[in-house]
């Protein structure tokens, strides 16, 4: 029996690979292509059985379709439970904080995130699937958000963007400690907002207005996109995908806004020039993303690139034709453009398939 170390996702992949192998072996046997000798067949079966048992005990993987469906249900329940509990903490504090003195308020605000943080780490060590540790971690993060925002209210502190930096740091820490993608998402959003706020402040605007200049998001989104290239995330399931998709949304959405609303740009050109410039950038970047995704086998990058390429294309169609063109022709052209895209993707797929066969 091999003693190789797996991550939970590696173990799950291996179990699925075994199931696929068994199904294919049965098909081959039915078609009379390959039939293993009884001894060999039993040997393989025993090995797979032991492997699955071991993975199930050690990594809590799903070894059947039913358990996979139940796991999905548990994930959804844990996400909803965590979000509801996080919101409940806010209302609970607001409901009673007026009846307690300032030192006790401060004490509660500090001890709540610390104790929940300790609980989430302890659960993460004990649990294989970490459902409860993820809930505790998210509630701990929301307690920390409550902690700083309420200290601000209690002591009448001038609002500061620095809170976003520490919330991001804590969210990242919890995400990596509990292998939680939702917390990673919050961490990315918080740190990107913080960087965008700082960039906005350097250009002279008040930090809360950071969203009024979409270009503030370009630098944080580039940094977030590059990060998974610099740090290996093998142990963390789906983290690289979250980094890339959130980064792409943060770069494409501002470009989409600027391509339709040039006046809010930092650039000092005329609004129409800025809009044209960002439309071009939008097409080039989304097409490049599709190419990069295909080249690196990053499905999420290809899909996000596709979505934004179509959004850029359709907003342009809308700009050009909506007002004067009969609606049946407008939608017919949209349909034709979708067919064209389908043909292009089919050609790319075929050329990929033939490359695969050749290699």
């Amino acid at each position, binding site marked *: 029996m091999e003693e190789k170390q797996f991550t939970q996702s590696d173990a799950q992949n291996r179990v699925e690979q075994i199931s696929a192998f068994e199904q294919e072996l049965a098909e081959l046997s039915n078609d009379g292509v390959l039939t293993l000798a009884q001894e060999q067949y039993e040997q393989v079966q025993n090995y797979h059985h032991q492997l699955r048992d071991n993975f199930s005990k050690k990594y809590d993987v799903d070894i059947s379709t039913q358990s996979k469906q139940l796991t999905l249900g548990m994930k959804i329940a844990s996400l909803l439970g965590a979000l509801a509990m996080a919101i409940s903490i806010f209302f609970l504090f*607001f*409901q009673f904080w007026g009846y307690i003195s300032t030192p006790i308020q401060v004490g509660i605000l500090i001890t709540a995130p610390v104790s929940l943080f300790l609980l989430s780490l302890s659960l993460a060590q004990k649990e294989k699937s970490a459902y409860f540790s993820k809930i505790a971690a998210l509630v701990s993060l929301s307690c920390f958000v409550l902690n700083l925002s309420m200290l601000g209210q209690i*002591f009448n*502190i001038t*609002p500061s963007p620095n809170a976003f930096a520490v919330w991001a740091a804590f969210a990242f820490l919890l995400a990596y400690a509990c292998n939680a993608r939702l917390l990673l998402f919050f961490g990315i959003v918080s740190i990107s907002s913080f960087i965008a706020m700082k960039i906005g402040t350097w250009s*002279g605007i008040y930090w809360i207005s950071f969203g009024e200049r979409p270009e503030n998001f370009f630098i944080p989104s580039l940094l977030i996109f590059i990060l998974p290239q610099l740090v290996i995330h093998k142990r963390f399931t789906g983290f690289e995908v979250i980094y890339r998709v959130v980064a792409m949304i943060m770069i494409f959405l501002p470009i989409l806004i600027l391509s339709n609303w040039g006046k809010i740009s930092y650039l000092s050109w005329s609004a129409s020039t800025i809009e044209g410039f960002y439309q071009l950038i939008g097409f080039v970047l989304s097409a490049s993303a599709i190419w990069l995704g295909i080249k690196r086998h990053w499905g999420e990058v290809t899909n996000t690139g596709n979505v934004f390429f179509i959004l850029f294309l359709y907003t342009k169609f809308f700009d050009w034709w909506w007002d004067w063109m009969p609606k049946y022709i407008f939608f017919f052209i949209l349909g034709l453009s979708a067919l064209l895209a389908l043909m292009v993707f089919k050609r790319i797929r075929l050329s990929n398939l033939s490359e695969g066969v050749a290699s």
Partner: protein
Amino acid sequence: MKKYLLIGLIILIGTNLAVLGGVAYNRMGEATAQLTLTERELSLPYNSSARKENSGMSLSIDWRTPSRNNETYYPRDIRITKDELLALGFAQVDVKDNYWVESRELYWAFEFDGALHKAEVIKAKEKYQTALLAYEEQSSDTNSYKKNEYSESLAREKTTNSRLFFVEASADYESLATKFAAQQNILIVKGLAKPYYNNSDKTYSLQLMHLSVRHIMVPLEYTKALVDLKRIDRQDITPPRYAVDISWGNRLEPWIVDVKRLTD
């Protein structure tokens, strides 16, 4: 896990220490301003349905700008020159369409219960006297309405309107502190403002958006004096029911020192 535990505790405890250290620094040494404001300048919260979910109490700061000639309302903007706007740090004042100009955080100086308020009382008195004379000359419905309206305005100016008046904005604290060093009734705080260009009369103005700290939290020990009170309507002419001693510290952040009931 030990690594996560250590970093996590550093983030949580370190951040709280930094925040509480900032609060201690703000309250350290001599206060930058100490005023006794009343209900005229500090409003109770609205009794909306959302309040039922929030047991905390905070008072919002009501401030004004001096009224302009022939205007009966109190605008939240002041006339200013282009050079003055540039001195405040605005770079886009030459943008003529005001389409997208962001706010900046500036230092605002306020005068409490001083010459600016006295001037408003005099203005209100003059308006009332003029309306009274007109009514005595011709007791028409219009003149009667005006006389009553200005009488109420005068009473409101004397009894309920805020006496906290915006005086000046500056990009730096020191210049304001030096300029008003001799006056005890001056408060300097931070607030957000943005420029506005009036295309029809080609003038610039500074729009005063809001204070950086708009509400002051009432600690539990002082809420007893306020807990049974309800927010009064701005049209009511009611003498202030409470007075609040407030200090502003090194970071220009306020805190309540005492709350007193003025009427029972």
